[in-house]
């Protein structure tokens, strides 16, 4: 539907066209007005062209230094990783999971009979907690934080995300969300006469795909440890 808003760019175009056409037209033969002399115009254009060529040479050196660190991470593969992790954890087959997904490990000495678990934040806590009871009472609590890959536009950005935080104080184990990581990206799209044929997103397609990996916290606790958790903490016991 045509409205004023979409007419504005067209009007703007018309204004530009009119201004430049008017400036370009020579009024009369005998105009004493200044017109761009040929040598000056040549120099300006030559300078501009050189500038463009220099930039073209420089760009490979400055762009995407960090790009090399980011490997490709296609969405389907990542999604699969997430569900695999979940299923494996739930089935007690956590050891089948790729070691690379281990973000952090904690080992605690704990002799108390009871442990209170709490999530220290009001925010949504996305990490699923699995608890496995060990076969013995060895007064040790092991916590492993697994996370599958996260991506932005099919680029693996897992490295920047921080792991969750665990603090053990007395009989309270507080689990906190990780420190928020911030990521700023600039993405350059190729100009539309090219993307028309290469099928890349262009012009008005400004959509990125974001995928955050699945994370779980796998706790292995002594056999008879009593676990108390606040209601909002979602714990799944592993068989």
């Amino acid at each position, binding site marked *: 539907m045509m409205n004023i808003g979409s007419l504005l760019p067209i009007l703007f175009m018309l204004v530009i066209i009119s201004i430049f056409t008017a400036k*370009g037209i020579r009024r009369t*033969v005998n105009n004493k007005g200044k017109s*761009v002399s040929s040598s000056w115009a040549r120099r300006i254009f030559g300078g501009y062209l050189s500038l463009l060529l220099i*930039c*073209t040479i420089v760009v490979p050196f400055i762009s995407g230094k960090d790009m090399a660190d980011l490997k490709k991470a296609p969405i389907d593969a990542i999604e699969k990783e997430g569900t695999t992790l979940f299923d494996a954890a739930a089935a007690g087959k956590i050891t089948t999971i790729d070691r690379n997904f281990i973000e952090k490990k904690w080992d605690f000495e704990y002799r108390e009979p009871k442990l209170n678990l709490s999530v220290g934040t009001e925010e949504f806590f996305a990490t699923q907690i699995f608890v496995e009871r060990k076969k013995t009472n060895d007064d040790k609590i092991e916590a492993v934080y697994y996370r599958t890959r996260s991506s932005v536009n099919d680029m693996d950005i897992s490295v920047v995300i921080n792991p969750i935080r665990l603090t053990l104080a007395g009989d309270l184990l507080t689990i906190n969300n990780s420190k928020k990581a911030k990521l700023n*990206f600039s993405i*350059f799209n*190729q100009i539309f006469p090219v993307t*028309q044929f290469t099928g890349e997103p262009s012009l008005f397609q400004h959509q990125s795909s974001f995928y*955050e990996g699945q994370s779980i916290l796998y706790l292995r606790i002594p056999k008879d440890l009593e676990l108390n958790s606040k209601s909002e903490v979602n714990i799944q016991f592993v068989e």
Partner: protein
Amino acid sequence: MMSLTTVSLTSIVKKQYSYKLKAYVQVFWNLVFLQLLAILFSLNGVGMSGSSSETLEVEVHYYSADLVAFFTMLWGFIIAIIITTKAYRNDDFTFVTNRLSHNLSNILFLLTASIIGGLTAMLSPNLLKVIMYIFDRQLMVASTSAAGSLNEFIIGICTTSLYIFLFCALGYLIGTLVQIHKVFVVLVPALFFGALFLGGVSGNTRIVSNFFGFIFTESSILLFMTKIIISCTLVFASALVLSTRLEVKQ
């Protein structure tokens, strides 16, 4: 009697063409200006998207030199109109010409200008990147494509030049119409906007958008090139026919 020199059309067209490359050089200054302006506007980015969760906040800024390409097409339109105006048109008649050679050399000149415009438009994203790098270093600069593969570059020059040439053809036709009768200065924009408005009112922008959609959404290179070349030929031929009605008025 002094013997009369006989001249061939091709030799005159060649001479006029090389003369115009020197005499119409002002248009390249316009190109620089418009492209720099477009780059300035592009520094703002063309869009943004983001995602935020408790653990990760991502902001993606989109940049594109689309505006440069588009301004360059406008430039093609503008310079084509300019060279149909009196002073430029009459330049040829000071020396040796006839209508056909005059128009052919103009078309050759516009073609050259289109290629130069296409080349600079393809190189301009690099300037944009360098400027952004200088002023905003904390941003990670990433490309959706492999950094300017040669293939894309060549495709880009060809297609962008053809787009510009098409705009040149349109400008040349409109400029010629205006020279024939001033009424077209008002009539052509009126028709254009009229078509858009009528389309908007009836929810059917078919007429204008069809033509552009016809070309802008074509995804096969060969078809695209064929379409544009045919369109350009038709438009320039019309302008040529119309211009035979123009006399040399000082």
